[in-house]
Protein backbone atom coordinates (compact mmCIF):
# COMPACT_ATOMS: atom_id res chain seq x y z
CA UNK A 1 0.00 0.00 0.00
CA UNK A 2 1.39 3.41 -0.93
CA UNK A 3 2.13 6.08 1.66
CA UNK A 4 -0.59 8.28 0.15
CA UNK A 5 -3.30 5.66 0.46
CA UNK A 6 -2.23 4.90 4.02
CA UNK A 7 -2.64 8.53 4.96
CA UNK A 8 -5.96 8.70 3.16
CA UNK A 9 -7.18 5.59 4.94
CA UNK A 10 -6.06 6.79 8.35
CA UNK A 11 -7.67 10.17 7.97
CA UNK A 12 -10.86 8.52 6.81
CA UNK A 13 -10.97 6.21 9.80
CA UNK A 14 -10.46 9.16 12.09
CA UNK A 15 -13.44 10.83 10.48
CA UNK A 16 -15.53 7.67 10.65
CA UNK A 17 -14.76 7.26 14.33
CA UNK A 18 -15.97 10.77 14.95
CA UNK A 19 -19.37 9.90 13.51
CA UNK A 20 -19.94 6.83 15.65
CA UNK A 21 -21.97 8.65 18.23
CA UNK A 22 -24.54 9.68 15.65
CA UNK A 23 -27.98 8.06 15.84
CA UNK A 24 -28.69 5.10 13.57
CA UNK A 25 -29.89 6.65 10.36
CA UNK A 26 -30.11 5.17 6.90
CA UNK A 27 -31.66 7.85 4.75
CA UNK A 28 -34.95 7.06 3.03
CA UNK A 29 -33.58 7.81 -0.42
CA UNK A 30 -30.51 5.65 -0.03
CA UNK A 31 -31.67 2.58 -1.90
CA UNK A 32 -29.70 0.62 -4.44
CA UNK A 33 -30.98 0.69 -7.98
CA UNK A 34 -34.43 -0.78 -8.37
CA UNK A 35 -35.13 -4.01 -10.16
CA UNK A 36 -32.90 -7.00 -10.71
CA UNK A 37 -29.47 -6.67 -12.30
CA UNK A 38 -29.20 -8.27 -15.73
CA UNK A 39 -27.17 -11.38 -16.44
CA UNK A 40 -24.19 -9.31 -17.54
CA UNK A 41 -24.53 -6.50 -15.02
CA UNK A 42 -21.85 -6.37 -12.38
CA UNK A 43 -23.20 -6.79 -8.86
CA UNK A 44 -21.24 -4.32 -6.78
CA UNK A 45 -20.31 -5.95 -3.48
CA UNK A 46 -19.00 -4.58 -0.20
CA UNK A 47 -17.75 -6.69 2.71
CA UNK A 48 -18.61 -5.94 6.35
CA UNK A 49 -16.44 -7.79 8.86
CA UNK A 50 -13.29 -8.87 7.04
CA UNK A 51 -11.30 -10.79 9.64
CA UNK A 52 -11.90 -14.49 10.33
CA UNK A 53 -14.57 -15.96 8.03
CA UNK A 54 -15.01 -12.56 6.42
CA UNK A 55 -11.69 -12.95 4.60
CA UNK A 56 -13.35 -15.61 2.43
CA UNK A 57 -16.06 -13.20 1.28
CA UNK A 58 -13.72 -10.63 -0.19
CA UNK A 59 -13.88 -10.46 -4.00
CA UNK A 60 -11.05 -9.32 -6.24
CA UNK A 61 -13.27 -6.35 -7.13
CA UNK A 62 -14.95 -5.64 -3.77
CA UNK A 63 -15.93 -1.98 -3.83
CA UNK A 64 -15.66 -1.34 -0.10
CA UNK A 65 -14.47 -3.04 3.06
CA UNK A 66 -15.56 -2.42 6.63
CA UNK A 67 -14.20 -3.57 9.96
CA UNK A 68 -13.83 -2.16 13.46
CA UNK A 69 -10.26 -3.47 13.52
CA UNK A 70 -7.86 -1.46 11.40
CA UNK A 71 -5.50 -4.45 11.13
CA UNK A 72 -8.26 -6.51 9.54
CA UNK A 73 -8.93 -3.72 7.07
CA UNK A 74 -5.29 -3.43 6.06
CA UNK A 75 -4.99 -7.19 5.47
CA UNK A 76 -8.29 -7.38 3.65
CA UNK A 77 -7.38 -4.52 1.31
CA UNK A 78 -4.50 -6.63 -0.02
CA UNK A 79 -6.99 -9.20 -1.27
CA UNK A 80 -8.70 -6.73 -3.54
CA UNK A 81 -6.73 -6.80 -6.78
CA UNK A 82 -9.09 -5.03 -9.16
CA UNK A 83 -9.36 -1.42 -8.08
CA UNK A 84 -8.94 0.24 -4.70
CA UNK A 85 -11.67 -0.46 -2.17
CA UNK A 86 -12.95 2.27 0.11
CA UNK A 87 -12.24 1.42 3.75
CA UNK A 88 -14.71 2.04 6.55
CA UNK A 89 -14.96 1.40 10.25
CA UNK A 90 -18.73 2.06 10.42
CA UNK A 91 -20.92 -0.18 8.24
CA UNK A 92 -23.56 2.55 7.97
CA UNK A 93 -21.27 4.47 5.64
CA UNK A 94 -21.38 1.51 3.23
CA UNK A 95 -25.16 1.34 3.41
CA UNK A 96 -25.38 5.01 2.47
CA UNK A 97 -23.61 4.39 -0.85
CA UNK A 98 -26.02 4.12 -3.76
CA UNK A 99 -23.53 2.29 -5.99
CA UNK A 100 -23.33 -0.79 -3.77
CA UNK A 101 -25.85 -3.55 -4.55
CA UNK A 102 -25.01 -6.20 -1.99
CA UNK A 103 -23.09 -6.75 1.21
CA UNK A 104 -21.55 -9.70 2.98
CA UNK A 105 -21.68 -9.73 6.78
CA UNK A 106 -19.12 -11.71 8.77
CA UNK A 107 -19.14 -10.00 12.14
CA UNK A 108 -19.71 -11.70 15.53
CA UNK A 109 -23.23 -13.06 16.00
CA UNK A 110 -24.55 -10.14 18.02
CA UNK A 111 -24.32 -7.85 14.98
CA UNK A 112 -25.87 -10.13 12.34
CA UNK A 113 -29.50 -9.11 12.72
CA UNK A 114 -29.00 -5.37 13.05
CA UNK A 115 -26.69 -5.19 10.04
CA UNK A 116 -28.91 -7.42 7.91
CA UNK A 117 -32.03 -5.44 8.75
CA UNK A 118 -30.21 -2.16 8.11
CA UNK A 119 -28.84 -3.45 4.82
CA UNK A 120 -32.27 -4.57 3.58
CA UNK A 121 -33.72 -1.20 4.56
CA UNK A 122 -30.98 0.45 2.53
CA UNK A 123 -31.83 -1.76 -0.47
CA UNK A 124 -28.84 -4.09 -0.31
CA UNK A 125 -28.92 -7.85 -0.81
CA UNK A 126 -27.16 -9.75 1.97
CA UNK A 127 -24.95 -12.78 2.45
CA UNK A 128 -24.77 -13.16 6.24
CA UNK A 129 -22.50 -15.57 8.05
CA UNK A 130 -24.05 -18.22 10.22
CA UNK A 131 -25.38 -18.34 12.88
CA UNK A 132 -28.27 -16.31 11.52
CA UNK A 133 -29.15 -14.45 14.70
CA UNK A 134 -28.51 -14.24 18.41
CA UNK A 135 -32.18 -14.29 19.39
CA UNK A 136 -35.44 -15.64 18.01
CA UNK A 137 -36.95 -12.18 17.48
CA UNK A 138 -33.83 -11.06 15.64
CA UNK A 139 -34.19 -13.97 13.23
CA UNK A 140 -37.81 -13.03 12.59
CA UNK A 141 -36.78 -9.39 12.04
CA UNK A 142 -34.28 -10.51 9.40
CA UNK A 143 -36.96 -12.51 7.57
CA UNK A 144 -39.41 -9.62 7.76
CA UNK A 145 -36.84 -7.17 6.42
CA UNK A 146 -35.84 -9.46 3.55
CA UNK A 147 -39.46 -9.92 2.48
CA UNK A 148 -40.66 -6.36 3.06
CA UNK A 149 -37.76 -4.76 1.20
CA UNK A 150 -37.62 -7.60 -1.38
CA UNK A 151 -33.97 -8.42 -0.86
CA UNK A 152 -32.16 -11.73 -1.33
CA UNK A 153 -30.71 -12.79 2.02
CA UNK A 154 -28.59 -15.94 2.02
CA UNK A 155 -27.20 -17.37 5.28
CA UNK A 156 -23.68 -18.68 4.85
CA UNK A 157 -24.32 -22.15 6.29
CA UNK A 158 -22.71 -23.48 3.15
CA UNK A 159 -23.39 -27.17 3.78
CA UNK A 160 -26.55 -26.82 1.69
CA UNK A 161 -24.33 -26.13 -1.29
CA UNK A 162 -22.04 -29.10 -0.61
CA UNK A 163 -22.29 -32.03 -3.08
CA UNK A 164 -22.08 -34.64 -0.29
CA UNK A 165 -24.91 -33.03 1.68
CA UNK A 166 -27.03 -33.12 -1.47
CA UNK A 167 -26.31 -36.84 -1.94
CA UNK A 168 -27.22 -37.47 1.70
CA UNK A 169 -30.41 -35.46 1.23
CA UNK A 170 -31.42 -37.49 -1.84
CA UNK A 171 -30.76 -40.72 0.06
CA UNK A 172 -32.78 -39.80 3.13
CA UNK A 173 -35.61 -37.90 1.46
CA UNK A 174 -36.21 -40.82 -0.96
CA UNK A 175 -36.92 -43.05 2.02
CA UNK A 176 -33.79 -45.20 2.05
CA UNK A 177 -33.76 -45.12 5.86
CA UNK A 178 -37.52 -45.54 6.19
CA UNK A 179 -39.21 -43.09 8.53
CA UNK A 180 -36.67 -41.07 10.54
CA UNK A 181 -37.00 -41.76 14.27
CA UNK A 182 -34.00 -39.92 15.63
CA UNK A 183 -30.94 -37.94 14.69
CA UNK A 184 -28.00 -37.84 17.10
CA UNK A 185 -25.35 -35.16 16.61
CA UNK A 186 -21.97 -35.50 18.31
CA UNK A 187 -19.39 -32.75 18.74
CA UNK A 188 -16.27 -32.02 20.87
CA UNK A 189 -16.68 -29.75 23.93
CA UNK A 190 -16.45 -25.96 23.78
CA UNK A 191 -12.98 -24.38 23.95
CA UNK A 192 -11.42 -24.38 27.41
CA UNK A 193 -10.65 -20.88 28.72
CA UNK A 194 -7.11 -20.19 29.97
CA UNK A 195 -7.62 -16.76 31.54
CA UNK A 196 -9.90 -14.94 33.96
CA UNK A 197 -9.97 -12.06 31.51
CA UNK A 198 -8.48 -9.22 33.55
CA UNK A 199 -9.38 -6.01 31.66
CA UNK A 200 -6.75 -4.88 29.19
CA UNK A 201 -6.06 -1.67 27.33
CA UNK A 202 -7.96 -1.52 24.04
CA UNK A 203 -5.53 -1.63 21.09
CA UNK A 204 -5.37 1.69 19.25
CA UNK A 205 -6.34 -0.10 16.06
CA UNK A 206 -9.64 -1.43 17.47
CA UNK A 207 -12.93 0.39 18.03
CA UNK A 208 -14.07 -1.63 21.04
CA UNK A 209 -17.30 0.28 21.59
CA UNK A 210 -18.38 -0.45 18.01
CA UNK A 211 -17.27 -4.08 18.35
CA UNK A 212 -19.60 -4.42 21.35
CA UNK A 213 -22.36 -2.54 19.54
CA UNK A 214 -25.73 -3.72 20.85
CA UNK A 215 -24.23 -6.14 23.41
CA UNK A 216 -23.95 -5.20 27.10
CA UNK A 217 -20.79 -3.28 27.93
CA UNK A 218 -17.79 -5.34 29.02
CA UNK A 219 -14.12 -4.50 29.43
CA UNK A 220 -11.80 -5.40 26.57
CA UNK A 221 -9.82 -8.60 26.62
CA UNK A 222 -8.38 -10.25 23.48
CA UNK A 223 -10.12 -13.52 24.40
CA UNK A 224 -13.46 -11.80 24.56
CA UNK A 225 -12.97 -10.40 21.08
CA UNK A 226 -11.96 -11.94 17.72
CA UNK A 227 -12.83 -15.65 17.32
CA UNK A 228 -13.24 -16.27 21.06
CA UNK A 229 -16.51 -14.29 21.23
CA UNK A 230 -18.12 -17.68 20.53
CA UNK A 231 -17.59 -18.68 24.16
CA UNK A 232 -19.71 -15.86 25.62
CA UNK A 233 -23.49 -15.89 25.65
CA UNK A 234 -23.60 -12.11 25.08
CA UNK A 235 -21.98 -12.46 21.64
CA UNK A 236 -21.95 -16.13 20.65
CA UNK A 237 -23.66 -19.27 21.79
CA UNK A 238 -20.95 -21.92 22.05
CA UNK A 239 -20.46 -24.66 19.49
CA UNK A 240 -24.19 -25.44 19.64
CA UNK A 241 -24.93 -22.23 17.74
CA UNK A 242 -21.65 -22.19 15.84
CA UNK A 243 -20.94 -25.51 14.16
CA UNK A 244 -24.28 -26.69 15.50
CA UNK A 245 -25.85 -24.24 13.09
CA UNK A 246 -24.16 -26.18 10.25
CA UNK A 247 -25.05 -29.60 11.64
CA UNK A 248 -28.67 -28.68 12.38
CA UNK A 249 -29.03 -27.05 8.97
CA UNK A 250 -28.24 -30.41 7.37
CA UNK A 251 -30.56 -32.20 9.83
CA UNK A 252 -33.40 -29.82 8.99
CA UNK A 253 -32.79 -30.29 5.24
CA UNK A 254 -32.56 -34.08 5.32
CA UNK A 255 -35.59 -34.50 7.59
CA UNK A 256 -37.65 -31.98 5.59
CA UNK A 257 -38.08 -29.91 8.75
CA UNK A 258 -37.49 -26.42 7.30
CA UNK A 259 -41.19 -25.69 7.14
CA UNK A 260 -42.09 -27.29 10.49
CA UNK A 261 -44.64 -25.12 12.27
CA UNK A 262 -45.63 -27.41 15.14
CA UNK A 263 -44.36 -27.64 18.69
CA UNK A 264 -41.00 -28.86 19.91
CA UNK A 265 -40.11 -29.86 23.47
CA UNK A 266 -36.54 -29.01 24.43
CA UNK A 267 -34.45 -29.94 27.45
CA UNK A 268 -30.75 -29.49 28.10
CA UNK A 269 -28.12 -30.48 30.66
CA UNK A 270 -24.46 -29.71 30.92
CA UNK A 271 -21.54 -28.59 33.03
CA UNK A 272 -19.75 -25.28 33.52
CA UNK A 273 -16.12 -24.36 32.95
CA UNK A 274 -14.68 -24.13 36.45
CA UNK A 275 -11.71 -22.02 35.39
CA UNK A 276 -11.66 -18.95 33.21
CA UNK A 277 -14.14 -16.34 32.09
CA UNK A 278 -15.98 -18.08 29.22
CA UNK A 279 -19.63 -18.52 30.18
CA UNK A 280 -20.94 -21.04 27.64
CA UNK A 281 -21.27 -24.58 29.02
CA UNK A 282 -18.20 -26.82 28.93
CA UNK A 283 -20.30 -29.86 28.08
CA UNK A 284 -23.85 -29.92 26.80
CA UNK A 285 -26.57 -32.42 25.95
CA UNK A 286 -29.75 -31.13 24.29
CA UNK A 287 -32.82 -33.09 23.29
CA UNK A 288 -35.52 -31.76 20.94
CA UNK A 289 -38.71 -33.80 20.58
CA UNK A 290 -40.89 -33.01 17.56
CA UNK A 291 -44.54 -33.92 17.03
CA UNK A 292 -46.39 -35.01 13.91
CA UNK A 293 -44.28 -36.71 12.84
CA UNK A 294 -42.70 -37.74 16.12
CA UNK A 295 -38.93 -37.87 16.10
CA UNK A 296 -36.06 -36.91 18.37
CA UNK A 297 -32.96 -34.83 17.75
CA UNK A 298 -30.03 -34.75 20.17
CA UNK A 299 -26.82 -32.72 20.42
CA UNK A 300 -24.07 -34.11 22.63
CA UNK A 301 -20.70 -32.53 23.37
CA UNK A 302 -18.52 -34.27 23.99
CA UNK A 303 -20.26 -36.97 22.03
CA UNK A 304 -18.96 -40.25 20.74
CA UNK A 305 -18.26 -40.43 17.00
CA UNK A 306 -20.08 -43.20 15.16
CA UNK A 307 -17.37 -45.91 14.83
CA UNK A 308 -18.71 -46.98 11.45
CA UNK A 309 -17.82 -43.63 9.88
CA UNK A 310 -15.93 -41.62 12.50
CA UNK A 311 -15.18 -37.94 12.32
CA UNK A 312 -14.60 -34.96 14.62
CA UNK A 313 -18.29 -34.05 14.47
CA UNK A 314 -21.29 -35.41 12.67
CA UNK A 315 -24.71 -37.03 13.00
CA UNK A 316 -26.27 -40.47 12.85
CA UNK A 317 -29.69 -40.55 11.16
CA UNK A 318 -31.73 -43.52 12.37
CA UNK A 319 -34.82 -44.63 10.51
CA UNK A 320 -37.15 -47.65 10.56
CA UNK A 321 -35.07 -49.48 7.96
CA UNK A 322 -31.49 -48.31 8.18
CA UNK A 323 -29.22 -45.58 9.45
CA UNK A 324 -26.76 -43.17 7.88
CA UNK A 325 -23.82 -41.13 9.13
CA UNK A 326 -23.21 -37.61 7.83
CA UNK A 327 -20.03 -35.87 8.96
CA UNK A 328 -19.74 -32.16 9.71
CA UNK A 329 -22.23 -30.04 7.75
CA UNK A 330 -20.15 -27.10 6.59
CA UNK A 331 -17.63 -26.96 3.74
CA UNK A 332 -16.17 -30.24 4.99
CA UNK A 333 -19.37 -32.30 4.79
CA UNK A 334 -19.02 -36.02 4.09
CA UNK A 335 -21.39 -38.97 3.96
CA UNK A 336 -21.14 -42.77 3.90
CA UNK A 337 -20.47 -44.42 0.54
CA UNK A 338 -23.96 -45.92 0.25
CA UNK A 339 -25.41 -42.43 -0.14
CA UNK A 340 -22.74 -41.51 -2.68
CA UNK A 341 -23.56 -44.62 -4.73
CA UNK A 342 -27.31 -44.07 -4.60
CA UNK A 343 -29.17 -42.97 -7.74
CA UNK A 344 -32.56 -41.39 -7.00
CA UNK A 345 -35.44 -42.63 -9.16
CA UNK A 346 -36.35 -40.30 -12.01
CA UNK A 347 -39.65 -39.45 -10.32
CA UNK A 348 -38.06 -39.29 -6.87
CA UNK A 349 -36.85 -36.38 -4.77
CA UNK A 350 -33.93 -34.47 -6.25
CA UNK A 351 -32.22 -31.98 -3.96
CA UNK A 352 -31.24 -28.66 -5.51
CA UNK A 353 -27.75 -28.77 -7.00
CA UNK A 354 -26.11 -25.55 -5.93
CA UNK A 355 -23.47 -23.98 -8.17
CA UNK A 356 -21.67 -22.96 -4.97
CA UNK A 357 -23.05 -20.99 -2.06
CA UNK A 358 -21.77 -17.56 -3.09
CA UNK A 359 -22.66 -18.11 -6.75
CA UNK A 360 -26.16 -19.26 -5.76
CA UNK A 361 -26.60 -15.96 -3.90
CA UNK A 362 -25.47 -13.95 -6.93
CA UNK A 363 -27.73 -16.00 -9.23
CA UNK A 364 -30.71 -15.33 -6.98
CA UNK A 365 -30.00 -11.60 -6.91
CA UNK A 366 -30.31 -11.76 -10.71
CA UNK A 367 -33.40 -13.99 -10.83
CA UNK A 368 -35.20 -12.88 -7.67
CA UNK A 369 -35.53 -16.50 -6.53
CA UNK A 370 -34.92 -17.59 -2.96
CA UNK A 371 -31.40 -18.88 -2.31
CA UNK A 372 -30.62 -22.39 -1.08
CA UNK A 373 -30.09 -21.16 2.51
CA UNK A 374 -32.72 -18.44 2.48
CA UNK A 375 -32.93 -16.32 5.63
CA UNK A 376 -36.23 -17.97 6.65
CA UNK A 377 -34.55 -21.39 6.70
CA UNK A 378 -31.62 -19.83 8.53
CA UNK A 379 -34.02 -18.40 11.11
CA UNK A 380 -35.66 -21.81 11.59
CA UNK A 381 -32.32 -23.58 12.05
CA UNK A 382 -30.79 -21.05 14.43
CA UNK A 383 -34.00 -21.08 16.46
CA UNK A 384 -33.33 -24.75 17.19
CA UNK A 385 -29.83 -23.81 18.39
CA UNK A 386 -31.13 -20.91 20.46
CA UNK A 387 -33.82 -23.09 22.03
CA UNK A 388 -31.10 -25.47 23.22
CA UNK A 389 -29.20 -22.63 24.89
CA UNK A 390 -32.39 -21.20 26.43
CA UNK A 391 -33.37 -24.58 27.88
CA UNK A 392 -29.84 -24.94 29.25
CA UNK A 393 -29.95 -21.55 30.95
CA UNK A 394 -33.46 -22.02 32.34
CA UNK A 395 -32.63 -25.50 33.60
CA UNK A 396 -36.06 -26.83 32.69
CA UNK A 397 -37.95 -28.43 29.86
CA UNK A 398 -39.57 -25.87 27.56
CA UNK A 399 -42.13 -26.22 24.79
CA UNK A 400 -41.82 -23.86 21.82
CA UNK A 401 -44.52 -23.31 19.24
CA UNK A 402 -43.07 -22.54 15.80
CA UNK A 403 -46.43 -21.22 14.56
CA UNK A 404 -46.49 -18.39 17.10
CA UNK A 405 -42.74 -18.29 17.79
CA UNK A 406 -43.45 -18.22 21.52
CA UNK A 407 -43.03 -20.64 24.39
CA UNK A 408 -46.08 -22.54 25.58
CA UNK A 409 -47.31 -21.66 29.10
CA UNK A 410 -43.93 -20.26 30.16
CA UNK A 411 -44.03 -16.44 30.11
CA UNK A 412 -40.54 -16.03 31.55
CA UNK A 413 -39.06 -18.25 28.82
CA UNK A 414 -40.57 -15.68 26.44
CA UNK A 415 -38.27 -13.08 27.97
CA UNK A 416 -35.46 -14.91 26.17
CA UNK A 417 -37.04 -14.26 22.77
CA UNK A 418 -35.06 -11.05 22.51
CA UNK A 419 -32.11 -9.46 24.28
CA UNK A 420 -32.56 -5.71 24.82
CA UNK A 421 -29.80 -3.73 23.13
CA UNK A 422 -27.25 -1.36 24.53
CA UNK A 423 -28.06 2.22 23.66
CA UNK A 424 -28.37 3.61 20.97
CA UNK A 425 -29.03 0.36 19.05
CA UNK A 426 -32.56 -0.80 18.30
CA UNK A 427 -34.31 -3.44 16.23
CA UNK A 428 -37.09 -1.04 15.27
CA UNK A 429 -37.45 2.12 13.29
CA UNK A 430 -34.03 2.70 11.79
Amino acid at each position, binding site marked *: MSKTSKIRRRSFLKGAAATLALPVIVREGVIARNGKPGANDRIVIANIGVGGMGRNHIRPDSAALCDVDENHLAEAAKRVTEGTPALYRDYRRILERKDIDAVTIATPDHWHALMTVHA*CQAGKHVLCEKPTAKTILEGRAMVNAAR*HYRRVVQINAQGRSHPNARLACNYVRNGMLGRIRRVDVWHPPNFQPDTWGEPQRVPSTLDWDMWLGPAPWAPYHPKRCHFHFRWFMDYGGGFLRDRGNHALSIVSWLTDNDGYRGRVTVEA*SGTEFREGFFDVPATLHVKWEFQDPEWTLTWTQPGTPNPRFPGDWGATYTGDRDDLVVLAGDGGCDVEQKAKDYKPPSDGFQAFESPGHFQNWLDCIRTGEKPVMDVEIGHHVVTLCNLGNIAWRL*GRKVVFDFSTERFVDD*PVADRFLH*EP*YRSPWSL*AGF
Partner: protein
Amino acid sequence: MEPGWLLTKIREKEMNGKMTASRLLEAIRGADADARWSAAENAADAGAEAIPELAQVMGGNDPEKAKAARVAMERIALASTAPGKEELRRSVSGALADVARGDGALAARRQAVRLLGFAGGAEACDTLAALIGQKDLREDARMALQRIPGNAADRALEQAARKAPAGYESALRRSLRDRKITRRDAGIR
Protein backbone atom coordinates in the same frame (compact mmCIF):
# COMPACT_ATOMS: atom_id res chain seq x y z
CA MET B 1 -28.88 -42.39 24.73
CA GLU B 2 -27.62 -39.92 27.33
CA PRO B 3 -23.79 -39.68 27.38
CA GLY B 4 -21.87 -41.19 30.29
CA TRP B 5 -20.84 -37.84 31.78
CA LEU B 6 -24.47 -36.78 31.96
CA LEU B 7 -25.62 -40.00 33.60
CA THR B 8 -22.92 -39.51 36.25
CA LYS B 9 -24.16 -35.97 36.84
CA ILE B 10 -27.78 -37.12 37.15
CA ARG B 11 -26.81 -39.88 39.61
CA GLU B 12 -24.77 -37.40 41.64
CA LYS B 13 -27.73 -35.05 41.90
CA GLU B 14 -30.08 -37.85 42.95
CA MET B 15 -27.67 -39.02 45.65
CA ASN B 16 -27.20 -35.51 47.03
CA GLY B 17 -30.92 -34.79 47.26
CA LYS B 18 -32.43 -31.31 47.44
CA MET B 19 -29.96 -28.44 47.71
CA THR B 20 -30.34 -26.07 50.67
CA ALA B 21 -28.86 -22.59 51.07
CA SER B 22 -26.55 -23.64 53.90
CA ARG B 23 -25.21 -26.68 52.02
CA LEU B 24 -24.68 -24.60 48.89
CA LEU B 25 -22.80 -21.83 50.69
CA GLU B 26 -20.65 -24.25 52.65
CA ALA B 27 -19.64 -26.00 49.43
CA ILE B 28 -18.99 -22.78 47.54
CA ARG B 29 -16.79 -21.35 50.30
CA GLY B 30 -15.07 -24.69 50.94
CA ALA B 31 -11.77 -26.02 49.58
CA ASP B 32 -13.17 -28.94 47.57
CA ALA B 33 -13.61 -27.77 43.97
CA ASP B 34 -15.63 -30.85 42.97
CA ALA B 35 -18.09 -30.23 45.80
CA ARG B 36 -18.21 -26.51 44.97
CA TRP B 37 -19.13 -27.05 41.33
CA SER B 38 -21.52 -29.87 42.02
CA ALA B 39 -23.32 -27.53 44.44
CA ALA B 40 -23.23 -24.53 42.08
CA GLU B 41 -24.59 -26.51 39.14
CA ASN B 42 -27.38 -27.96 41.31
CA ALA B 43 -28.15 -24.74 43.18
CA ALA B 44 -31.64 -24.29 41.73
CA ASP B 45 -33.48 -25.34 44.91
CA ALA B 46 -31.38 -23.30 47.34
CA GLY B 47 -33.78 -20.35 47.17
CA ALA B 48 -33.60 -16.64 47.95
CA GLU B 49 -31.89 -17.21 51.28
CA ALA B 50 -28.58 -17.99 49.56
CA ILE B 51 -28.47 -14.89 47.37
CA PRO B 52 -26.95 -12.27 49.78
CA GLU B 53 -23.99 -14.48 50.65
CA LEU B 54 -23.48 -15.55 47.03
CA ALA B 55 -23.20 -11.84 46.21
CA GLN B 56 -20.51 -11.48 48.88
CA VAL B 57 -18.52 -14.39 47.42
CA MET B 58 -18.79 -12.78 43.98
CA GLY B 59 -17.00 -9.76 45.41
CA GLY B 60 -14.20 -11.84 46.90
CA ASN B 61 -10.71 -12.30 45.52
CA ASP B 62 -10.96 -15.97 44.53
CA PRO B 63 -12.09 -15.90 40.88
CA GLU B 64 -13.14 -19.55 40.81
CA LYS B 65 -15.34 -19.21 43.89
CA ALA B 66 -16.74 -15.95 42.52
CA LYS B 67 -17.63 -17.70 39.28
CA ALA B 68 -19.28 -20.60 41.10
CA ALA B 69 -21.31 -18.08 43.13
CA ARG B 70 -22.38 -16.27 39.95
CA VAL B 71 -23.48 -19.57 38.37
CA ALA B 72 -25.39 -20.53 41.53
CA MET B 73 -27.14 -17.15 41.68
CA GLU B 74 -28.25 -17.53 38.07
CA ARG B 75 -29.50 -21.09 38.64
CA ILE B 76 -31.55 -19.98 41.65
CA ALA B 77 -32.96 -16.93 39.86
CA LEU B 78 -33.95 -18.73 36.67
CA ALA B 79 -35.34 -21.79 38.49
CA SER B 80 -37.65 -19.46 40.41
CA THR B 81 -39.24 -18.36 37.14
CA ALA B 82 -40.74 -21.78 36.38
CA PRO B 83 -44.53 -21.67 35.99
CA GLY B 84 -46.36 -22.19 39.29
CA LYS B 85 -43.58 -20.87 41.56
CA GLU B 86 -44.81 -17.30 42.02
CA GLU B 87 -44.11 -17.12 45.75
CA LEU B 88 -40.55 -18.34 45.26
CA ARG B 89 -40.02 -15.96 42.35
CA ARG B 90 -41.13 -12.97 44.43
CA SER B 91 -38.77 -13.87 47.26
CA VAL B 92 -35.86 -14.33 44.84
CA SER B 93 -36.73 -11.05 43.14
CA GLY B 94 -36.68 -9.32 46.53
CA ALA B 95 -33.26 -10.77 47.38
CA LEU B 96 -31.85 -9.76 43.99
CA ALA B 97 -33.22 -6.23 44.43
CA ASP B 98 -31.50 -5.98 47.83
CA VAL B 99 -28.18 -6.94 46.23
CA ALA B 100 -28.73 -4.52 43.34
CA ARG B 101 -29.48 -1.62 45.73
CA GLY B 102 -26.73 -2.51 48.16
CA ASP B 103 -23.10 -1.42 48.39
CA GLY B 104 -21.51 -4.74 47.41
CA ALA B 105 -19.17 -5.48 44.52
CA LEU B 106 -20.22 -4.00 41.19
CA ALA B 107 -19.99 -7.42 39.48
CA ALA B 108 -22.52 -8.86 41.94
CA ARG B 109 -24.83 -5.87 41.63
CA ARG B 110 -24.71 -6.00 37.81
CA GLN B 111 -25.49 -9.71 37.87
CA ALA B 112 -28.42 -9.11 40.22
CA VAL B 113 -29.78 -6.36 37.97
CA ARG B 114 -29.49 -8.54 34.87
CA LEU B 115 -31.23 -11.44 36.62
CA LEU B 116 -34.06 -9.12 37.68
CA GLY B 117 -34.81 -8.85 33.97
CA PHE B 118 -35.89 -12.50 34.16
CA ALA B 119 -36.99 -13.08 37.76
CA GLY B 120 -38.30 -9.58 38.38
CA GLY B 121 -41.94 -8.59 38.10
CA ALA B 122 -43.87 -5.44 38.97
CA GLU B 123 -42.33 -5.48 42.46
CA ALA B 124 -38.81 -4.96 41.00
CA CYS B 125 -39.58 -2.02 38.73
CA ASP B 126 -39.13 0.84 41.23
CA THR B 127 -35.74 -0.51 42.25
CA LEU B 128 -34.62 -0.79 38.64
CA ALA B 129 -35.92 2.70 37.82
CA ALA B 130 -33.96 4.13 40.76
CA LEU B 131 -30.78 2.37 39.58
CA ILE B 132 -30.98 4.21 36.27
CA GLY B 133 -29.67 7.15 38.29
CA GLN B 134 -26.41 5.26 38.89
CA LYS B 135 -24.02 5.48 35.96
CA ASP B 136 -22.41 2.05 36.39
CA LEU B 137 -25.75 0.23 36.49
CA ARG B 138 -27.83 2.47 34.25
CA GLU B 139 -27.73 0.42 31.05
CA ASP B 140 -28.24 -2.92 32.81
CA ALA B 141 -31.21 -1.52 34.72
CA ARG B 142 -32.78 -0.07 31.56
CA MET B 143 -32.34 -3.37 29.70
CA ALA B 144 -33.78 -5.33 32.63
CA LEU B 145 -36.85 -3.05 32.70
CA GLN B 146 -37.24 -3.40 28.94
CA ARG B 147 -37.42 -7.17 29.40
CA ILE B 148 -40.08 -7.16 32.13
CA PRO B 149 -43.57 -7.22 30.63
CA GLY B 150 -46.49 -5.21 32.01
CA ASN B 151 -47.59 -1.70 32.90
CA ALA B 152 -45.36 -1.36 35.95
CA ALA B 153 -42.24 -1.55 33.78
CA ASP B 154 -43.76 0.93 31.31
CA ARG B 155 -44.47 3.35 34.14
CA ALA B 156 -40.99 2.86 35.60
CA LEU B 157 -39.35 3.63 32.25
CA GLU B 158 -41.59 6.69 31.80
CA GLN B 159 -40.76 7.89 35.28
CA ALA B 160 -37.05 7.30 34.71
CA ALA B 161 -37.22 9.15 31.38
CA ARG B 162 -38.67 12.22 33.12
CA LYS B 163 -35.82 12.25 35.64
CA ALA B 164 -33.11 10.99 33.27
CA PRO B 165 -29.65 12.48 33.32
CA ALA B 166 -28.78 14.69 30.37
CA GLY B 167 -28.62 12.72 27.13
CA TYR B 168 -30.12 9.54 28.52
CA GLU B 169 -33.82 10.20 28.02
CA SER B 170 -33.66 9.02 24.39
CA ALA B 171 -32.37 5.60 25.47
CA LEU B 172 -35.33 5.19 27.82
CA ARG B 173 -37.80 6.36 25.16
CA ARG B 174 -36.24 3.84 22.76
CA SER B 175 -36.75 1.07 25.34
CA LEU B 176 -40.41 2.07 25.69
CA ARG B 177 -40.79 1.87 21.91
CA ASP B 178 -38.84 -1.40 21.55
CA ARG B 179 -41.03 -3.13 24.15
CA LYS B 180 -43.84 -2.87 21.60
CA ILE B 181 -41.98 -4.66 18.78
CA THR B 182 -43.89 -7.74 17.68
CA ARG B 183 -42.81 -10.61 15.49
CA ARG B 184 -44.95 -9.09 12.73
CA ASP B 185 -43.25 -5.68 12.58
CA ALA B 186 -39.73 -6.50 13.78
CA GLY B 187 -37.17 -5.32 11.26
CA ILE B 188 -39.55 -3.08 9.32
CA ARG B 189 -39.19 0.66 9.48
